[in-house]
């Protein structure tokens, strides 16, 4: 067989590897499909490469997924928009494969191509493709077709439009629940392209069928359609057609359906307008907040702030706030936790007076919750309430909560609170922090769990950034350096780590005068692990400190370490020396 000229060699290999036995190589070739196409030229890409891809479509799903993605941006390589239709056949077959993610990607690419195609091409090629898929023998093709109607419909001639609407209606009554689910999912997108007159008749009847489907999974998705359709309809139509559906959904026998309603309800408020919201949606929402099923209450509680933002404050205070009070003592910890994660956002909605009078007691009770997640969630959103009423009112209850979390016996809880310490510090201010929290931050450096010590080291760095080097010189550095004499080498290692993090924040002067001597001193440690960590830290300090200091202090220490009996110490010391050479050469 012919050899190919030298500059083309990599491409020749790339093309051959489209059919290599190693999946990684095939994947790589598919990912470079645009290179292959450019090498072949537009015409051969159309006449050879694309048909080749169409035929070789029983590959592994990973390869098919990559192919579906690449073809979506392939229009420039086949000769521009006027030839876009040649890309449809390979994507059409990809729309029928069994693997959901491949189909989804193929549909996405088809939509992308369809959006750029000329109108006559859409009529000639795209619409027939949608119809073929919708009449597909396997449910996989029909599932994919549902996601393409919104591209095909706007360009279709009048007769085709009628047909497309009819076909969509049939898909919504398909034997296979998978197809009905896909039709329900895509209904909103399709409806957005349908003329207002048909929207009220055809689409609404399709929608009503879906809301009465005997499969819960289909009805669930119809709930999602409510909000999308609601936004398309005139308010009075929305009130007439969507509102009754959503109200009945909110009392559905299946908790899963009610759960979806609880998640979606706030989106519908705008669509129906203020009056129906007050008369129908607020009562429905209140029912969901008091639902028997904890999962539904969790979803409803999680949306309480979003819902209140839409309502006027009086309605929120009158109807929602009493429920919030009940939820704050809910029997399910997950409900309380969901509430705690959003409740702080209600403060700006309710205003200062109502917050102090009504919300503050709830914050305080949640801050004392027996379940750590609840307390954590309150603390994580502290900034929101701070903007409305200031932190002073909370600080008295805050401190015990923080201290308790800081000493929680679950290390994940301790880890979570450490992450919030910089936020707390900025909200509470230096004064409060110094008194109460400083000691905690040092205590974490001596935690039994590595992750906590690691996070604690990061924490002191972030504090130094927050409050500045001067403050850190007083309140962090001495305490941290003091701990280098800890008996246990693991704790000494934490301190070395903290030093390497602090050095860039503190700047060269303090690093040289305070931090470096401690590190150099640690190079005499009896534990090799400390010694090679010293080498690593010194390496990180080299760019920070002055060149003369490197020559005078750092390098001699590293040279000494590079002759250590321990192999690891020698390795890291040599590595550090090499990097110092590089720094020197570059300057």
């Amino acid at each position, binding site marked *: *067989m012919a050899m190919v000229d030298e500059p*083309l060699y990599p*491409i020749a290999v790339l093309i051959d590897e489209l059919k290599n036995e190693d999946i990684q190589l095939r994947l790589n070739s598919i990912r470079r499909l645009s290179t292959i196409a450019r090498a*072949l030229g537009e015409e051969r890409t159309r006449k050879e490469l694309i048909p080749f891809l169409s035929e070789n479509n029983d590959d592994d799903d990973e390869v098919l997924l990559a192919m579906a993605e690449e073809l979506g941006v392939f229009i420039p390589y086949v000769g521009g928009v006027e030839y876009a239709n040649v890309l449809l056949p390979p994507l059409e077959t990809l729309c029928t494969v069994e693997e959901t993610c491949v189909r989804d990607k193929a549909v996405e690419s088809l939509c992308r191509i369809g959006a750029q195609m000329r109108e006559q091409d859409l009529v000639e090629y795209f619409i027939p493709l949608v119809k073929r898929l919708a009449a597909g023998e*396997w449910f996989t093709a029909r599932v994919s077709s549902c996601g393409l109607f919104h591209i095909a419909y706007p360009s279709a001639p009048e007769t085709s439009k009628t047909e497309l609407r009819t076909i969509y209606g049939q898909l919504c009554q398909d034997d296979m*629940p998978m197809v009905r689910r896909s039709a329900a999912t895509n209904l909103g997108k399709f409806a957005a392209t349908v003329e207002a007159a048909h929207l009220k008749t055809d689409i609404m009847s399709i929608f009503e069928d879906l809301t009465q489907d005997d499969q819960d999974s289909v009805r669930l998705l119809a709930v999602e359609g409510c909000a999308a359709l609601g936004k398309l309809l005139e308010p009075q139509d929305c009130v007439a057609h969507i509102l009754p559906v959503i109200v009945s959904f909110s009392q*559905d026998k299946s908790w899963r359906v009610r759960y979806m309603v609880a998640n979606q309800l706030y989106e519908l408020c705008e669509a129906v307008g203020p009056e129906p919201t007050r008369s129908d949606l607020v009562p429905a929402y209140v029912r969901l907040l008091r639902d028997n099923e904890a999962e539904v209450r969790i979803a409803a509680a999680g949306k309480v702030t979003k819902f209140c933002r839409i309502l006027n404050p009086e309605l929120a205070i009158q109807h929602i706030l009493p429920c919030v009070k009940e939820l704050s003592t809910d029997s399910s910890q997950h409900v309380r936790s969901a509430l705690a994660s959003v409740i702080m956002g209600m403060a700006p909605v309710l205003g200062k007076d109502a917050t102090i009078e009504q919300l503050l007691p709830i914050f305080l009770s949640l801050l004392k919750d027996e379940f750590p997640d609840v307390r954590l969630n309150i603390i994580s959103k502290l900034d929101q309430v701070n903007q409305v009423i200031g932190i002073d009112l909370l600080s008295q209850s805050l401190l015990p909560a923080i201290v308790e979390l800081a000493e929680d016996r679950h290390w994940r809880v301790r880890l979570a609170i450490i992450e919030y310490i910089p936020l707390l510090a900025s909200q509470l201010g230096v004064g409060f922090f110094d008194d109460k929290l400083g000691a905690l931050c040092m205590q974490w450096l001596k935690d039994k769990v590595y992750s906590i010590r690691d996070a604690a080291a990061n924490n002191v760095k972030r504090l130094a950034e927050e409050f500045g080097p001067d403050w850190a010189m007083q309140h962090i550095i001495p305490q941290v350096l003091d701990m280098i004499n800890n008996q246990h080498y693991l704790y000494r290692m934490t301190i070395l780590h903290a030093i390497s993090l602090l050095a860039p924040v503190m700047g060269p002067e303090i690093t040289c005068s305070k931090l470096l001597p401690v590190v150099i001193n640690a190079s005499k440690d009896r534990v090799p692990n400390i010694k090679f960590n010293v080498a690593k830290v010194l390496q990180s300090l080299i760019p920070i400190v002055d060149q003369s200091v490197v020559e005078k202090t750092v390098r001699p220490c590293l040279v000494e370490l590079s002759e250590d009996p321990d192999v690891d110490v020698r390795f890291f010391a040599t590595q550090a020396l090499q990097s110092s050479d590089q720094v020197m050469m570059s300057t």
Partner: protein
Amino acid sequence: MIGGDEATKAPAAGAPQPLEWNFSQVFGERAAGEEVQEVDIISAIEFDRTGDHLATGDRGGRVVLFERNDTKDHYGHRRDLERTDYLISRHPEFRYKTEFQSHEPEFDYLKSLEIEEKINKIRWCHAANGALFLLSTNDKTIKFWKVQEKKVKKVCDLNVDHSRAMGNGPVVCSRKSASSKQCMENGGCNERPSGYSSIDASLPSGGVPPLRLPVVTTHETSPVAKCRRIYAHAHDYHINSISNNSDGETFISADDLRINLWNLEISSQSFNIVDVKPANMEDLTEVITSAEFHPTHCNTIAYSSSRGSIRLIDMRQSALCDTHSKLFEEQEVPGSRSFFTEIIASISDIKFAKDGRYILSRDYMTLKLWDINMDRGPVTTFQVHEYLRPKLCDLYENDSIFDKFECCLSGDGRHVATGSYSNLFRVFGCSEGSTEATTLEASKNPTRRQVQTPTRPSKPPGTLPRVLRRGADTSGADANGSAFDFSTKLLHLAWHPTENSVACAASNSLYMYYA
């Protein structure tokens, strides 16, 4: 169906003719004196919803697939395949299609437990795009398999002749840059040649003529099984059942104490929907023995317990369905209690009838048919092997009393079947007025030891008068008077979804019968 008096009457015209059973096929028949390997013993049988495919699992962790070969237009219209009604006049004949190793023996290092590879259950999922899908499970891990005809391909007409390139390595390499040289030496080109981007820029707009695409020629196809997903680490106890939901996207898996709900596409999480584990394990009084989704109601699940009860749960009510919506159990007959009562009451298998109205359950001695609209007792009770009652003591001593027999219903719901010892299985008619009770042996001559006893429905003392008990053999011993062999037990069998055809497993052999 024979119902209570409030049950709807099936369209029955007098007593229907009993089925005449004939031998159809056997796979893996044992030669005389041949010893059975433990790993070859069949442990699960399942027809797919069309009846065109049959899967068996064995103790060695293998799954064997059979496909129907007695019809010319095997696939018909594919849309029909997705539906379930598919009628052909001839009796089904199957041929071996493929097999694959589904599970391997494992060891749980945390609990120091060996995990057997034995397949506990197989369930078929919806076929798509010509590929078959099924779930198989051992004690701990459920796997989702795709079986597809793959083309055996031959690629030719490559741009680069690899064999020559490798042979002439040094010569060719001398013309190459460093990066592509490495590529040549590897032959398979494992190193990525660098510098595509520079080539991208230098390509002429008209393309490069000498490059060509490889030509792929396909020769034949062969079925290839691929594990698509593994659903693991969700069960502390042994999985006894898996069942697909009618929504086509979820399934349940049940172990002794819990039932979990999965999405087929998501293997990383499942939801616990039933948990019968008491706070203190000493308070444990019953375990879950079997669980199944309703065939059409996506939110209804039935599960059976070791105390002989069946519970129906409604998943709409709550996320954790610890409270059942319906409970089916038979009132104990006063005075009949013995040491074995509780043991033999344990239900080993439940199956919904296709219409979803009836549930068939198997306990050690009987088959019971329940109407889900009637919870005061079973509609009908069939005695499977009443002659063993005096031998319960022996059966207890050799542990046979804990054998888990499966049961099945015919597609039209007019017959039920279950296995027994000595490789026997029994078929009962359950339509109105039927007295059919056939004993068949899993061999090439199924009626050799037939015990055809069309007994009149008798009324055992103390039971509800309208509840029928049938099939009790008149004689206490086997018809031939031969001793029963407790080591040859027929635990697993399945009824074809649309035809009167039964597949049953006698240790390592798969026997098929039709009527």
